[in-house]
């Protein structure tokens, strides 16, 4: 009787360990499956994009359809200009709001702002696009780089706000108290002690936000619009790398598909370089990455 029960228990234990082993194995498979798409995408970008990239891609203008060659010089410059406008709007407001949230943790304004910043972060970028169109394109009557930059800048604000706040909260309170005890005014304590201490983290947050908006397409569709010609005026429609990639990929011509792949490779390189820079900034200051 007892031995039968014992062997049953043994069998049961063996089965349970088997199930456990299988499930653990499944999580390993999940890990492989989840990293597979990334490796596939990067590999295809390398193979198909690298063959179309040449110096001309960076220095030449797009050619009319049917003519071989041509580059995306205007789109690359346009993307840099858009990033510039967006950063000029998103960074100061985001950092200012982050300072406010870190200093006034529980006021109604701070709590509402924190919650709404998270909500804004989840807002579909196309909605930001039609919003910018409604306030900046419709009343003025034409598309412009400014409208595109504002749409991207508005997307940056909540991102920068939340990372700035997070980084500031890591700064020990004793630093702030020491500065105040030495007679520093509050604003100088915040700017030259607290903000300075958290600077590396805030730069990281800013870079991550830039990397995120650099590849955005949907907010630019009805604002920056795209431009086949050379334009650096912020009052005129402007070309952007993601827009150009979108147009070329949807086109029927094989040469344009090649350019779309090349553009995608350049775009992802820009994004990855900024993301890596973001990691390095924090690492060099604190000896280890923050996240």
């Amino acid at each position, binding site marked *: 009787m007892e031995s039968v029960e014992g062997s049953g228990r043994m069998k049961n234990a063996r089965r*349970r*360990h088997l*199930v*456990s*082993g299988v*499930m*653990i194995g*499944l*999580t*390993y498979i*999940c890990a492989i499956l*989840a*990293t597979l*798409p*990334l490796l596939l995408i990067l590999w*295809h970008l390398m193979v*198909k994009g690298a063959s179309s990239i040449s110096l001309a891609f960076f220095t030449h203008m797009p050619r009319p359809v049917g003519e071989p060659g041509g580059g995306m010089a205007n789109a690359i410059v346009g993307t840099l200009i858009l990033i510039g406008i967006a950063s000029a709007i998103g960074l*100061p*407001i985001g*950092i*200012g*709001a982050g*300072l*406010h949230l870190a200093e006034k943790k529980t006021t109604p*304004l701070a709590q*509402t*702002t924190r919650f709404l910043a*998270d909500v*804004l972060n*989840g*807002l*579909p*970028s*196309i*909605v930001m696009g*039609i*919003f910018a169109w409604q*306030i900046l394109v419709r009343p003025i009557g034409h598309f412009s780089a400014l409208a595109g930059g504002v749409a991207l800048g508005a997307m940056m*604000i909540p991102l920068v706000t939340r990372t700035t706040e997070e980084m500031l909260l890591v700064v020990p309170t004793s630093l702030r108290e020491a500065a105040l005890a030495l007679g520093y*005014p509050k*604003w100088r304590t*915040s700017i030259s002690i607290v903000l300075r201490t958290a600077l590396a983290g805030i730069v990281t947050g800013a870079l991550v936000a830039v990397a*995120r908006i650099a*590849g*955005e*397409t*949907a907010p630019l*569709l*009805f604002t920056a*619009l795209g431009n086949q010609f050379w334009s650096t005026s912020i009052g005129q429609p402007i070309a952007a790398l*993601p827009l150009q*990639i*979108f147009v070329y*990929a*949807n086109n029927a011509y094989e040469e344009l*598909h090649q350019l779309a792949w090349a553009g*995608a490779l350049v*775009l992802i390189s820009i*994004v*990855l370089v900024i993301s890596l820079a973001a990691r390095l900034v924090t690492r060099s200051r604190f000896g280890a990455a923050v996240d």
Partner: protein
Amino acid sequence: MTSLPVDWLEKDRRKLRVDASAFSDKVYEALTAACAVVIPTLVIAIALAIFVAAWPAFSKLGLSILTSSDWDVAAGHFGAAPAVFGTLVSSAVALIIATPLAIGIAIFLSEFSPLWLRQPVGFLVDLLAAIPSVVYGVWGIFVLVPMLRSSVMPFLRDTLHLGSTPFFTGPAYGPSMLAAGIILAIMALPYISSVSREVLMAVPRSQREAALALGATRWEMIRDAVIPYAKSGIIGGIMLGLGRALGETMAVTMVIGNRLEISASLFAPGYTMASLIANQFSEATNDLQLSALMAVGAILFVITLIINAIARWLVWRVSKGQAA
């Protein structure tokens, strides 16, 4: 030396300095508060601008925007039901694919992964979130869609005999609801897995130790002691991924086929609300069409707002340790 005047001077000067710093403190606080106010203002401005622009469509078309599937620009009919359907179905397909994978990898990274693998694998998965949508689209058009057309779709339909169900029937064009669902799954995966990993890490050690001490295997420990504790946070992560999937535009527009029809088959092309806006907005020919597209945007705005708010609340509850 008479000390009185010096004292008096010093006091006065100190008072002046204090006044000056009190004033600059006020300026500083007002400035940062103004920056903070920008965010609620932005949300209100977005809501106002879009709803005002959508009002003519809402008042003229009423609920038929949501319920009718007749979208005829020339006739002035704007029923976006197929786009709403496509948004929901493509997101559902994405979650069905992404959720088990994302939770699996979160469990792997938080419990079983060798230490040296944890950083690189976590980094690779997070990198998925950094890839621009349009790059996913390019990959989708030129790699995923041909692959679906030539091998995956015939395999599902004929080899696995799923063609007898209504979901996997019809010709395999390539651009389809299935393609959109797969792309969205890849895009939502990093959001679900990073939130899940975070909440799994937040489960106290004692939960795990207690389960192991009671004789649980490592999997039983996860199933009975860790997951129930982290459950609402994981659901929050899934909803966050859902929010991403619902609003995703470029990649979906490039692979879904853009046809305004409701079909049960995942092989059929479809449309989503976001891609409807992306494709038609700049070519809108009349004010009612513009307004109808704004109305579609307004609906999308409200849906994602609600989903995100619930998601944040769920995650916040777990990280505050209030979950049972």
